[in-house]
């Protein structure tokens, strides 16, 4: 179900990219008083409460999508996207992620970064849970079912 594509350990890109993610979260709170959670921002585009509530969400999403283009301008290549799974599995995974983040009120950015930074107990439980089931799922797919 998954092909194995080995990836190199890239601690400096990871730390630097992570710091930028953190900077964006801090700036959105400092300027506009909002949690930078991809789930919440996206859900609000689908169910806006007002026109102003809709426009800021579209603005930040457009900004996010510009990120890979700026990456390309500096590095000469788009960020690597290596997909080790089939299209049906991608669809199943996507639907599960959508259901999960909606019931769970957040994802990696909202719970894992902003929530943990606020020392929220809900976000700690959410983050430990989705990390654990992520590890368990890959273990089952790759080592029990045999990739």
């Amino acid at each position, binding site marked *: 179900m998954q092909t194995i594509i080995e*990836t190199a350990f890239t601690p400096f890109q990871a730390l630097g990219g992570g710091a930028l*993610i*953190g900077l964006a*979260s801090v700036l959105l709170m400092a300027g506009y008083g909002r949690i930078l959670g991809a789930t919440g921002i996206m859900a609000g585009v689908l169910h806006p409460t007002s026109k102003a509530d809709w426009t800021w969400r579209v603005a930040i999403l457009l900004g996010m999508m510009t*990120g*890979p283009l700026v990456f390309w301008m500096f590095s000469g290549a788009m960020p690597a996207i290596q997909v080790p799974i089939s299209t049906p599995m991608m669809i199943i995974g996507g639907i599960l992620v959508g259901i999960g983040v909606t019931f769970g009120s957040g994802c990696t950015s909202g719970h894992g970064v902003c929530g943990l930074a606020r020392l929220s107990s809900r976000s700690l439980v959410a983050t430990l849970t989705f990390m654990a089931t992520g*590890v368990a799922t890959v*273990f089952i797919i790759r080592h029990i079912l045999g990739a």
Partner: protein
Amino acid sequence: MRLFGIYIIGLIFGLGISISGMSNPAKVLNFFDIAGTWDPSLAFVMGGALGVTFFGYRVILKRSAPMFDTVFRLPARTDIDLPLVGGSAIFGIGWGIAGFCPGGALPALGTGRSEVLIFVAALLVGIAIAKFLPRAFNTTAPA
């Protein structure tokens, strides 16, 4: 001007995601594969993001209001309930299958790659299902 500032914040986030490798499913799945081709990079992404946000929030939230708005909109709930735990568990399963999380996939739409489009379309279907299900059973919809 207000919207341009928000756009730039989104851009910083999207650039961070692009540099970090969070939008690369192979890298994410290898992070989860502790018993196999483990790539610990994403722990450094989380560490970098959390470190900056933790100290940044400490400074900012001492203020009475954000610079361009009237209030800080912070979640007030503290209860641990079934939707939180069950939803997060389902999210992790989907993340372990697809290798994309919402914050990794949304910026990656900018690459124009069809796999990202397919994931985000499925993600939206999942959100619609989750919003519809509780209504079908006549209970409270998740926020």
